[in-house]
């Protein structure tokens, strides 16, 4: 059985992967979909045309690969840690998304919105300080 310290370390490591790949995937998808523009689908042919355009974008593929990496890390960490621990612990993603959107996508982010991101992280910090496990392992 692994010690508590090594369990903490591997949990931290996998959450770090989640925080890195999740926001990157979202930002890449945002960039790819913005290039495609507003969706106007009224029939099947248009839906097919849209799907082809989405799947031929390298940015969207990079986003999908990044989100898949996030999902693998997420699945593995949930095999030993609580959902109510992992979900708040990965909240640093919100600040990461704002930073990536600002610097990579050049999206304007108002001071109020930055403050909102800060409040979200604060709330998540409070949630994260509650006991990580409240149910018996199955």
């Amino acid at each position: 059985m692994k010690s508590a310290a090594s369990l903490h370390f591997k949990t931290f490591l996998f959450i770090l992967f989640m925080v890195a790949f999740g926001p990157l995937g979202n930002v890449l998808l945002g960039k790819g979909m913005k290039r495609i523009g507003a969706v106007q689908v009224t029939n099947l042919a248009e839906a097919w045309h849209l799907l082809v355009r989405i799947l031929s974008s390298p940015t969207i593929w990079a986003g999908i690969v990044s989100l898949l990496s996030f999902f693998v890390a997420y699945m593995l960490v949930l095999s030993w840690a609580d959902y109510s621990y992992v979900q708040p612990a990965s909240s640093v993603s919100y600040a990461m998304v704002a930073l990536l959107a600002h610097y990579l996508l050049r999206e304007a982010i108002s001071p109020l919105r930055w403050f909102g991101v800060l409040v979200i992280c604060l709330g998540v910090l409070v949630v994260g300080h509650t006991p990580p496990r409240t149910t018996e392992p199955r």
Partner: protein
Amino acid sequence: MYHLILYVLIIGAGTLGELCVTRAMKVVGEVKDFRPIAIVRVFARAVRVPWMWAGISLMATAFFSLLTVLTTQNVSLVVPVTALNYGAGALGGRLILGENVSARRWIGVMVVCAGVAIVVLGGR
């Protein structure tokens, strides 16, 4: 109204999906071997758990709703709004997974929701 439905799908289906994946991974058991072949074996075990398929289907619904909303809205607005998942997560954790959600945790969830409201009011 159109965006509201999409946000409900992103938050509702997304959180339910995550709760299902959590239950599936607890059935699979703690992963201790991280060699690629061992991770492939974990996947092989995970896909035999019906909860995993329910989770993936729900998360895919949330994902495609997210893709649609991202075509017209800024990612710095869309992603923080999905922080409402914390409220849905705490509720689902209590009602579906039987977790004991303490007063402190609920306070944290409310602070998160306040943060989300501020982000939305922050405008473009």
